[in-house]
Every structure is written in C-alpha cells, then in structure tokens.
C-alpha cells in the first residue's frame, strides 16, 4: 500500500507535475473547478464584448465599431454567454456539488466526465479560433456574425461566406456532445449512487433540480446537434435543407433551433433555482417550505418547457390557432415557477434571516427574477409580443431573467460554496459592496432597455439616428455598465484576495444541513472517510439536534 501512496512532498510540487495532475484528472471536484474557472474567464470575455457594444450604442451616430464588427460582437456575446458561461458554470457546480450532496465518491462515469469537460474546453477554443480562421486559414479572420440563433437561410453559404458560420456550428456541436454526455453521467449518478438511506424524496433539492435539468439537456441538445448537421451539410455538401430556391424552408430551422433554444433557457435557469433553494433555508434558519411541491414544480417546468418554443416565432406569421396554443402553454410555465417563488418567500417568512452575502444575492435573485418573469408573461401574450418583438424590451426581459436571475444566483452560490472549495471565507464587506454596485448597475442598464424598447428601438442595430429620442435611454444603459464593471472588479479582487488571505472557513461555516458540509474544506479526493448514512432531507440537522430530528416529520 505504501508504494501506492504519493511520496511525502517536501517543498513545492513542480509546475509541470501540478499541470499534469489537473490535465489527467478524473476527479469530479477538480473537473468542476476547471469548468467554473473557464466559465468565469468566458464571462469576462463575453462581458467585454457587451461593453464594447454598449460603448458603440451609448449615443447616436458613434463610430467605435463598424457594423460588421458589431454583428460579430453580439453573436459571440450571446453564444459565449449561453454555451461557454452558463453551461460550464452550471455543469461545473453540479460536478462539484452533486456527488458531495448525495454522499457519493465520484460521478458514475469519471472518465466520461473528463471527456465531457475537454470537449467543452476544446469546442469553445474552436469557436474562438474563428477570429483567426474564419475566412479560411490564409485570409483575414473573422468570427460568426449571424446571431446566436443563426437563422437560416442567412447562414447558408450564399449569404455567409467564408468559414465563420462553420466554426459556430462545429464549436457548439463539439461542446454540445460534451454537455449531453455529462447529462447522461449525472442521471446515472443521481439515480444509482445515492448513499444509504437517501431515497429520492430525501435528496437535497439541488440534486432533484439537476436531475430534471439533465433530462432536459438530454432531449434538447441532440435536436440542436441534428439541426446544425443539416446546416453543415447545406454549407459543405450542397444539401438543400434551408435553401428556399430548391423548396427548403427557413421555418424548419426556426422550429428546430427553438425546440432546443427554449428548453435551453430553462436548462440555464434551473440550476439558479437549485442554488437559491439550497441557500435560502440555511440563511432563514428554516426548513424549505413545501419540498414535495418544489419537486413537482421542477418536474412540471421540465415538461412544459419542451412545449413552448413557438413563442419565439409569434411574428413569423403562423396560424392564429397555433399562436394561441403556444401562448397558453407559455403562460402555463408561470404556474410552477410561481409555486417556487411562493415557496422561497414562505421559507423566508418568520425565519431568523441572516443577510450574509449569499443570502443578499439570493434575495436579489428573487426580486429581479420576478420582474423578468413578469415581463415574460407580457411577452407570452401574442398582441403584446407583436408590438415589442425584436426590440430592446425583449433584450431587457431576458437579461432580467438570465443576469438578474441566473448570474445573481451564481454569485450567491460562489459566496456560499467558496469556503467549501477553497477552505477560506470570501470577504463580506467587499461582497456587500459588489452586491449593491451590481444591483444598481444592473437595474440601470437593463431597466432602461425596457423603455428604449417601448420607444421602438430594435435589437441588433449598430447605431441609430439622433431624432429617435433613444439617446438618453441608451446613455443610461451604457452608464450602468460602468457601475457593473466596478462591481465585477470588486468580485475579481475579492476572489483573488480571499483565495490567499481569506479567513479560515472550517468545515461548516454557515451551520448548514447538507452532506457536503460534513467533510473537510476542501474535501479530500475521496470526499468522505466513511460512507454516510442519512435518515432525512437534512442529515446534519439530525446530528446537531438529535432531540428534534427531521426524520420524525418526513
């Protein structure tokens, strides 16, 4: 046995061995960390892309960017944020947390997990390589400029010369295979590797929500891959799927893309729900309100979300009956989401709330996600959608959901689980400053977008005339970005500072109740020295309060 143990390390480990340790790892915690670090790097990249767009749009007639550069920026911003920020951060946190929370040593297929990560990693590099190779290796490069949804036939070879769209197809395709494999991995892990005593209804809600999330990935990502292959065949082999001159249809691409695209936004927001669902009870010092209903609502969202995609196509001119059906199904999503909202609030009511930074972010999530959800119900109404479709109102709406909702939930999660991952606390003062800067900057930026949308400003325009009355609102939007940048800088500062100088966290800094807090911070490679056994949804509560255990009530 002693031969298998690593040599007692005296002095620092050489850089190359440490690099090899990370590259060859199959450990879910290391892979999760790499996912999240990559996600945060791409968050900075995509954020800078957005900043450049806002600089260009800050006033009418600016000439910071050319129209072509602007088109590339909004394409890369959207694509990066969805596939290379949202997906890796959610898959990464699931990677790190799910095995710890269900008391497992690792995922069901650790090597497949590594494969998935590297597919995501190389796929994202392939997409960004288009900045150099988009016109073929020998010419001037350029990135895709077709929007994150890449509407055919604009993406056909006739209208999109060079290779930029091919890079979009291939990069996303490669990363998408990785995500699908991860979903397979998680479903097998959650169904097959729970520790002794943890029946499905005793699982932490994060694991439940991730399970539904992975089922959604499983049914939504392969159609995207198939649609991308059709497009690739059109471009490379001269097929006619989206070639309207040969009888092909632009509508088919829209249907296929949004059949993926709408479940995708739920795939992104569900992990946000998961983080908040774990954080709010701990900081309210109360058990989550309505656990079975939370599970039911999650499953319901999963089902409904694959049947709403046509609401992205209300202005296409489909039949009124079809529009009405999808309007109804879209509004139906509000019901399970509302149930979740009420459950979170009901958990907080009467609790002894501690507004530490994670809880601040979770509360910010509740408020801002609510606003985004409400404008979502507006947009689900066909006549309203006809008015503001493709305007900045829509941009404001989905940023309230994905930024005000998801990114705030991600920050809540980072502040909450950073002590577990690094063994050190993040700085509370900096965290609170960052929170308020982000809240103010975010609401200025995206609140103003609703108004400019109402005033008729279309999405994806690279500039506008001075006589439209949009200058003030655009200036406001761009000024908000500056406040946000301050907030993000504080986060970077906090992250680096806390990593080296942060206060020691101990195993359980928040007095929480799920299994990951019963092991050391950071956890050892094997997670738990002894296999845990649970009797209730809050195993650590049972240990801390043996006179009033949870299992009596479940």
């Amino acid at each position: 046995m002693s031969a298998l143990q690593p040599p007692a390390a005296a002095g620092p480990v050489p850089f190359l061995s440490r690099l090899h340790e990370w590259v060859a790892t199959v450990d879910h915690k290391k892979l999760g960390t790499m996912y999240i670090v990559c996600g945060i790097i791409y968050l900075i990249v995509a954020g800078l892309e957005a900043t450049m767009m806002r600089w260009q749009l800050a006033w009418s007639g600016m000439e910071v960017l050319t129209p072509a550069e602007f088109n590339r920026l909004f394409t890369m911003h959207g694509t990066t944020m969805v596939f290379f920020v949202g997906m890796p951060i959610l898959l990464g946190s699931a990677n790190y947390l799910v095995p710890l929370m269900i008391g497992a040593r690792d995922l069901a297929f650790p090597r497949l997990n590594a494969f998935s990560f590297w597919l995501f990693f190389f796929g994202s590099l392939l997409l960004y390589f288009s900045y150099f190779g988009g016109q073929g290796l020998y010419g001037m490069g350029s990135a895709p400029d077709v929007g994150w949804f890449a509407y055919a036939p604009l993406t056909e070879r006739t209208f999109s010369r060079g290779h930029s769209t091919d890079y979009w197809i291939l990069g996303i395709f490669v990363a998408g295979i990785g995500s699908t494999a991860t979903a397979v991995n998680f479903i097998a892990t959650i169904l097959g590797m729970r520790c002794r005593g943890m029946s499905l209804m005793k699982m932490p809600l994060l694991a439940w929500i991730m399970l539904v999330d992975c089922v959604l990935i499983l049914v939504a990502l392969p159609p995207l891959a198939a649609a991308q292959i059709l497009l690739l065949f059109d471009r490379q082999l001269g097929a006619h799927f989206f070639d309207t001159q040969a009888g092909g249809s632009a509508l088919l691409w829209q249907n296929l893309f949004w059949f993926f695209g709408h479940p995708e936004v739920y795939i992104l927001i569900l992990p946000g729900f998961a983080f908040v669902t774990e954080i709010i009870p701990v900081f309210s010092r109360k058990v989550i309100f309505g656990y079975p209903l939370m599970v039911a609502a999650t499953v319901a969202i999963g089902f409904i979300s694959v049947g709403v995609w046509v609401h992205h196509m209300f202005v296409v001119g489909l039949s009124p009956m079809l529009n009405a059906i999808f309007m109804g199904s879209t509004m139906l999503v509000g019901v399970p989401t509302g149930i979740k909202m009420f459950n979170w609030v009901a958990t907080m009511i009467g609790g002894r709330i501690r507004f530490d930074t994670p809880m601040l972010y979770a509360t910010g999530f509740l408020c801002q996600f609510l606003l985004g959800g409400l404008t979502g119900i507006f947009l689900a109404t066909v006549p309203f959608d006809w008015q503001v479709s493709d305007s900045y109102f829509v941009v404001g709406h989905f940023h309230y959901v994905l930024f005000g909702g998801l990114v705030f939930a991600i920050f809540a999660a980072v502040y909450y689980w950073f002590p577990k991952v690094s063994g050190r606390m993040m700085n509370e003062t900096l965290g609170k400053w960052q929170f308020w800067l982000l809240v103010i900057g975010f609401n200025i930026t995206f609140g103003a977008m609703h108004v400019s949308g109402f005033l008729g400003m279309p999405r994806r325009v690279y500039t506008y005339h001075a006589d439209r009355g949009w200058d003030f609102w655009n200036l406001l939007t761009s000024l908000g970005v500056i406040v946000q940048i301050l907030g993000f800088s504080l986060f970077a500062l906090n992250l680096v500072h806390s990593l080296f100088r942060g206060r020691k966290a101990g195993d359980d800094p928040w007095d929480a109740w799920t299994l990951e807090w019963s092991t050391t911070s950071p956890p050892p490679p094997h997670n738990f020295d002894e296999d845990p056994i649970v009797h209730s949804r809050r195993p650590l509560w049972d240990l801390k309060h043996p006179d009033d255990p949870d299992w009596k009530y479940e």
Partner: protein
Amino acid sequence: MNSIPPNEKTHGIELPQPTAGPMICAFGFTLMAAGIVTNWIVAVVGLTALLAGAVDWFRNANPDSLEMVAPPAREKPTPIVPRPGSVDHLLGDSSHRARIPMEIHRYRDGMIGGAIGGVVMAIFASLWGLIAHGSLWYAVNLLAGTLRSGVADLSMEELAAFSTEGLIVGIIIQAVMAITVGLLYGVVLPLVPRAPLVFAAIIVPLMWSGLTWAAVSVVNPALGDHVEWIWFIASQVVYGVTTGWWIIRSEKIGTMQNWHYVDRIGLETQRTGGNS
C-alpha cells in the same frame, strides 16, 4: 445520518486512476471537426489522437476500472457536536416546522371588506367629482374610460354628464377590483409582521397609485390628463383604511396544518362524533 459504519475494505478507499485518455480523445474529436474547415490532414491527425486516446481510455476502464488507493486525508473533518435543546420554536410552543401564518382571515371576510371599501371609496370619489367638477358622474366616467375607448375625445361636459353605459361599466370595474383586492388583503395581511393597518391603508395604496400613474402616462396619456392625483391617492387610501380595518377586526381561524390527516381531507369519521 447518525451512525456511520467503518469502511469494510481493509486496503483503503479506491478511486479511479487519473488518465489523459479522455482529454486526448476530446482533442482528437475537436481536430476532426476542425479538419472540415481547415485541411483534411488536420482531421487525420485528429482521428489518430482520437484512437490513441480511446485505446488508453479502454485500457483504463476494462476489464475492471483501474483504481488507485486514495491518499490519506491530511486532516479529519471536525466531528459534529450535538446541541440538544437549541432549537428555537417559531410561535409559542409550535414546532419550528410550522407554516406561517398559523391563523388566517376567512376569505369571506376579505371579500366583504373589499366590497365595503369599494362602496366607501366610490362615495368619496363621487363627492370629489361633485366638489371639483360639479358632477356626480365625472369619476364614474373616468373609471369606465379605462375599458371604454375614446375617452380622449370626450369634452369635460361629456365626462360630467350621466351615461348609462359608463355607470354600468364603472360599477363592474369597481366591484371586481374592490372584491379581488379585498381577497388579496385578507390573505396577505396576516403575513405582515408589524402594523398591518398602516400597510393596508398607506403603503400598498401608494404603491399601486404609483404603478397606475406610471402605466397610465404610457398606456393612455389622454385619460391620465383628466385625473387629479392627490384625489386619486386619497380615494385609494380611503379604500385601504376601510377594507384593512374591516379585515383586521374580523375573527381569525387556524389553518389546517395541525389537523389530523383524516379531518384535513374532510372525511366524516367517528373522530368528531365521539362514538366508537
């Protein structure tokens, strides 16, 4: 999780061995994709890497997963200390798992309170019309104007004149809104921690007045020009005071959360009858 058996295995905890196979596979696959847009040689290199990685992966996973013994942890987790008796209870002696609120107003009381508030508010608003514009019907016609089209074209005289349609539409709007808001008050007020009357009478009416003001100026600016906002807010407060007062003084009933399951689902059993 209150007893953890020692690990049965004597040779330690096994973990899958690190391998670069999956990474090389992924790299090869990406190169194959890149070959489509660069040069077929890139794809060939990719295929080679893919195969090499796959062989390594296969040898790691078959016939049995290649395992290594986990290095012993440098530190042990701190044992969790039981803290019996440290659980605070939410309300009185009920469990900390109680669902708040424990007592609620009857829905009926909320609706009745809303109706009464609606009547008082209507009288107040009509009085304002009489004082400010010399007509009982001015406020009614304005309210009806939120649903009827063409208010912008109406002159002050027409707004002040009696209109049957305006009266009917106005009464329907007022009744529906007043009763619905009353119902919501009945549900929400027990949740307000301090001074529910202030919440009902001032805070909430101010909030929806602000919302109305912001919305009307965008949705129907012509209608907004006719509204005097001080009076508008005052009549909302009158509604809030009346409805809130009625609901708060009404009797509260306990929720069903402590009932026996049989009673909760409404079965008529011997439990209530007492005979066995």
